[in-house]
């Protein structure tokens, strides 16, 4: 039995296989509509989420399976003081697979110690979010057709942005990747990501505070939201939340085939007028996320 807590729990071969399955689902959805019949997915969301939870649920429903679960800690037994381990143990008697989001980092790993069914980490605090990374990878695959030889800019909250950390980790396994980190000093990419991942693999990277200067060289621009829920200090959040706003004038020097990504939800960091730009790929990521979650559920259920 396999759990997916971090993108590195999946080998490059497994990711390639998931992408191939997702592409096949896109081509022929009917072929997969009963593949998880009589299987149940439990979505245990101890922290509110719209996209990820609905994406998992839509993925399971499109595979012909059923969904049970809860969408906030207040509607689960954790509000009565139940531990994550006990909740997961109990749910394991009801469901065949669990997708779990929790505000505490490492909560899904704690759950794996007692779980008899596969667990997918659907986000644990500011730590990992592997299925968002799978959505990002399918988007890059569909938009760029390759994972090698890309200059990828990450902009905004690079400190708490778990999607950034996971994607950097995933890209570190490919060749010819150059990273550009655009952030205020307070939200820079953590040192351990640099020392443990980037410098170990020798990926070239630069850090800057302005996006305009680096825009012409980017193949991908990955925007992020400054996440208020990760701040202990409200004043810091208010000061930093509008630090970067992508507007059409900032794209004037960008490549014609730039791929603009964002894990969503967006607040102010991408102007609505960009949505019409063919380079905007953030809503495609949402769709791709569902296909990759379908592929992942199938894989973890043994091809269902």
């Amino acid at each position, binding site marked *: 039995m396999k759990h997916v807590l971090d993108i590195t729990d999946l080998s490059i071969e497994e990711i390639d296989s998931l992408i191939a399955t997702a592409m096949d689902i896109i081509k022929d959805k009917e072929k997969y509509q009963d593949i998880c019949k009589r299987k149940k997915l439990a979505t245990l969301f101890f922290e509110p989420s719209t996209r990820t939870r609905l994406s998992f649920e839509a993925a399971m429903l499109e595979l012909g399976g059923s969904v049970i679960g809860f969408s906030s800690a207040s509607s689960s037994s954790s509000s009565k003081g139940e531990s994550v*381990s006990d909740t997961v143990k109990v749910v394991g008697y009801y469901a065949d697979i669990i997708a779990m989001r929790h505000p*505490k980092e*490492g909560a899904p790993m704690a759950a794996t110690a007692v779980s008899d069914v596969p667990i997918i980490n659907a986000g*644990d605090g500011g730590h990992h979010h592997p299925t968002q990374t799978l959505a990002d990878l399918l988007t890059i695959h569909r938009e760029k057709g390759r994972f090698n030889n890309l200059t990828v800019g990450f902009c905004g909250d690079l400190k708490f942005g778990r999607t950034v950390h996971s994607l950097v980790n995933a890209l570190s396994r490919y060749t010819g990747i150059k990273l550009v980190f655009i952030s205020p000093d307070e939200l820079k990419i953590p040192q351990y990501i640099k020392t443990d991942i980037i410098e170990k693999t020798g990926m070239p990277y630069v850090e800057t505070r302005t996006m305009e200067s680096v825009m012409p060289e980017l193949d991908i621009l990955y925007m992020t939201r400054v996440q208020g829920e990760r701040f202990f200090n409200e004043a810091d959040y208010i000061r930093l939340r509008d630090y970067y706003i992508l507007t059409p004038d900032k794209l004037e020097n960008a490549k014609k085939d730039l791929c603009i990504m964002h894990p969503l939800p967006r607040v102010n960091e991408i102007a609505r007028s960009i949505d019409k730009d063919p380079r905007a790929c953030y809503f495609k990521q949402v769709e791709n996320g569902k296909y990759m979650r379908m592929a992942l559920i199938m894989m973890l259920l043994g091809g269902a």
Partner: protein
Amino acid sequence: MTIDQIENGIVLDHIKAGNAMAIYRYLQLDELDCTVAVIKNVKSAKMGKKDIIKIDSPIDINLDVLGYFDENITVNIIRDGEKIAKKHVCLPEKIVNIVKCKNPRCITSTEQELDQVFRLTDPENRVYRCMYCDSSNNYLP
């Protein structure tokens, strides 16, 4: 100053000067009924000065704790007043319930009875990371 030789027990030697009390606490030596001597700032040709702990009882020592604190520590096993074995410790790959994760966002801060597990991720710089949240905890006395 004279400290009696022990008959059956363990001598922890070559402890970095100043670390003995921390090791005493982590090994929970205060819970022993036998004689325990903590000798600080002993002159050493190799180290300048060092600490030594003598335990007059043949107890099991958690070598991972010692390796985590100081991989230069040597463990001498004493039987009938004679040194019968000398063990060297090494930096352990994993330490369990020796240090606590300080990250307030880590699941270990709320989940009951969860082991505190740290993995060695960078031996050169002696960096251990929490198995759950990946925070580093470089507490070295």
